[in-house]
């Protein structure tokens, strides 16, 4: 045996073991425990298309924070679960995130269907959720205390494309196609309210089950109305929305079509026919049109940087929901920086301290205890579809200004529709 082995004392051995263990654990000596943040999205089913973009968008921010050394030296660790589109599963996973994984906040759930079915849980476990339901106002006020929405161009905001219809397209009478379910029924109420605000009459609503794939019977009902309708609104995510929009041509409804729903992604928009795309108007967030957004737009640089960062991390272009995902993570990260990993303080910070937070969708968030959206619903862009891509057409707010719709009238309607709590 060599002299070296004789000098291998127990103390030296313990030191060696400690070094090996630290190297093996991947935690450098002196590093702190990571901060756990939950991610609860839907990776299978009809809404999975949007959630995958949201997850990637959120990861852009988490990746940047971790590469910069974390928050106060602590990295962010995402604990990721799949709701599979089932509210009951989402509820039990949320409890698991809070009670077993000990996360400080949750990115998700995503769709209103899932969020509605488990909306009491965040309040029950006292862990805040930054979700992405497009109809957040459908959640009971007491359950909203621990949930906010990061969907910038939500259902109400998308319905506001009617201001563009009235102002630029001189439309006065429209029909409405929606899904025959609770959310479709609510959206009918919203569209009628927005129509009233901007001076457009919703002559008739038709509804079919969201699983239907032939909407000609309903569209032909609208086509038969005399005098003819001057415009049409369509609600529905996934194939339902696309089929309804495309079949307007077959039904002889060659009028401007406004769309409300989640189909603001390349996979679904590619199926929109060329003739329909030109008369399809969507009020959405700026991130939908990074290439055609005016260069003097206040969000131009932020969005271009986001597109660059997203491409660098994921090797693909972002879609609008990618920005939603980033904006779901953003308030949690900002709160963690300001108040540390305390769920209650994070909730309070998101609700009271974050003013004018610049989201990567191209909207600003200023949430309050009464307003879990925290956005100006008029601050969106109107886009068309050309060559399978979204193209910038106009700023919606300009139409509101020209129509001289007062802030007071808007605020009254937001309260009436429960968008802002009384």
């Amino acid at each position, binding site marked *: 045996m060599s002299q070296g082995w004789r000098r291998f004392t127990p103390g030296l051995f313990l030191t060696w073991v400690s070094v090996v263990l630290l190297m093996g654990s991947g935690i450098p000596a002196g590093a702190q425990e990571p901060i756990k943040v939950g991610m609860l999205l839907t990776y299978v089913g*009809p809404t999975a298309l949007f959630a995958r973009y949201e997850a990637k968008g959120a990861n852009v921010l988490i990746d940047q924070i971790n590469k910069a050394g974390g928050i106060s030296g602590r990295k962010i660790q995402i604990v990721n679960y799949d709701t599979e589109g089932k509210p009951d599963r989402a509820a039990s996973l949320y409890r698991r995130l809070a009670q077993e994984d000990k996360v400080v906040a949750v990115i998700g759930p995503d769709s209103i269907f899932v969020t509605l079915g488990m909306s009491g849980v965040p309040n029950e476990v006292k862990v805040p959720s930054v979700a992405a339901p497009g109809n957040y106002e459908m959640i009971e006020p007491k359950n909203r205390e621990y949930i906010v929405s990061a969907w910038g161009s939500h259902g109400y905001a998308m319905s506001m494309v009617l201001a563009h219809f009235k102002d630029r397209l001189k439309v006065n009478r429209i029909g409405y196609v929606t899904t*025959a379910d609770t959310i479709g029924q609510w959206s009918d109420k919203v569209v009628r309210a927005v129509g009233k605000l901007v001076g457009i009459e919703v002559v008739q609503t038709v509804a079919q089950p969201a699983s239907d794939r*032939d909407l000609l*019977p*309903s569209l*032909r009902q609208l086509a*038969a109305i005399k005098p003819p309708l001057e415009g049409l609104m369509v609600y529905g995510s996934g*194939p339902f929305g696309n089929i309804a929009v495309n079949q307007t041509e077959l039904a002889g409804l060659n009028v401007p079509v406004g769309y409300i729903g989640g189909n603001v992604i390349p996979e679904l928009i590619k199926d929109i026919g060329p003739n329909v795309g030109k008369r399809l108007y969507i009020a959405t967030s700026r991130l939908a049109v990074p290439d055609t957004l005016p260069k003097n737009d206040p969000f131009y640089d932020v969005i271009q940087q986001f597109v660059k960062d997203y491409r660098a991390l994921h090797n693909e272009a972002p879609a609008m929901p990618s920005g939603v995902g980033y904006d779901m993570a953003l308030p949690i990260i900002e709160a963690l920086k300001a108040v540390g990993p305390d769920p209650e303080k994070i909730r309070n910070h998101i609700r009271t301290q974050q003013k004018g937070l610049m989201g990567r969708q191209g909207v600003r968030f200023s949430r309050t205890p009464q307003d879990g959206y925290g956005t100006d619903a008029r601050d969106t862009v109107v886009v068309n579809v050309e060559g399978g891509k979204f193209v910038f057409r106009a700023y919606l707010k300009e139409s509101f200004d020209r129509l001289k719709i007062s802030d007071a009238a808007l605020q009254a309607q937001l309260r009436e529709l429960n968008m802002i709590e009384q």
Partner: protein
Amino acid sequence: MDQLLQVLFTGLSQGGIYALIALGFSLVMMSTRILNLAHGSFVLFGGFAFLTFDGTLGWHPAFAVPAVLIAIALLGLATERLLNFRARPWKPVSLDTAVLTTLALLVLFEGAAFLAWGPDPRRAPAIHAGVFTLFGAVVVWQAVWMLAAALAIALGLHFFFRRTWSGRAMRACAENPATAYLLGINARRIGAAAFMLSAALGALAGLLVSPVTWIDYQMGGFFMLKGVLAYLIGGEEEVAGPLVGGLFLGLLENLLLLFPGMTGGLLKQVVPMAVLIAILVFRPQGILAARR
């Protein structure tokens, strides 16, 4: 009037697909008395396989369609072999066990579809794209194919059951498998043939309907439900029952859309189930029972 015609055309074409699916249920029920709930997966796989052969690989429909039908027929055969793995002519498989196994297979096949084709809704290319106008109603060409296929298959099956030895053997197996066995009919082979033919019919329905409805891996249950509804409403008449049941269901669903506002869409989801309950209670043999 235009609206009514539109509803009738749409209802008939959707009813054609329901009828095709119901005929698949009927074939297997007639030969084996098994309600094959996995049949919805054959419809699903038919759509996805056509999407792969025609849409992704670029095969001409003249090759893609037979390839899909053969592939799914073999899947039907595999299903039958699994169900009857321990069955013997004198000791057929328990019907309860068989139905539960097919339910489990439906879930398994949907999982397989998820792994093979992913979670997103997809759309197969249409065999005949475009539309035409008939008496003011817009008719989608693909829908004409759906209805024509249902009528042609129903007619073909009618002659098959009445005029061929195999068809009569299938009916004999349904009436009394033990007697059929004693008469020299290989009930197992007949059952296997019924599963294959039924699966091919399901695949045909799938490839015809998927360009219109889009498909995702979870739709096996949807197709199964519509097929079972049509089959039970029509009754167990070998061909006429499923055909009439399918067309009735398609027409009923779409006629309800004539109710204004949200009402039509809501009724469309509820009324067919109410009709099924009424039929099961008051006329369990189906709406064609009076003809017997």
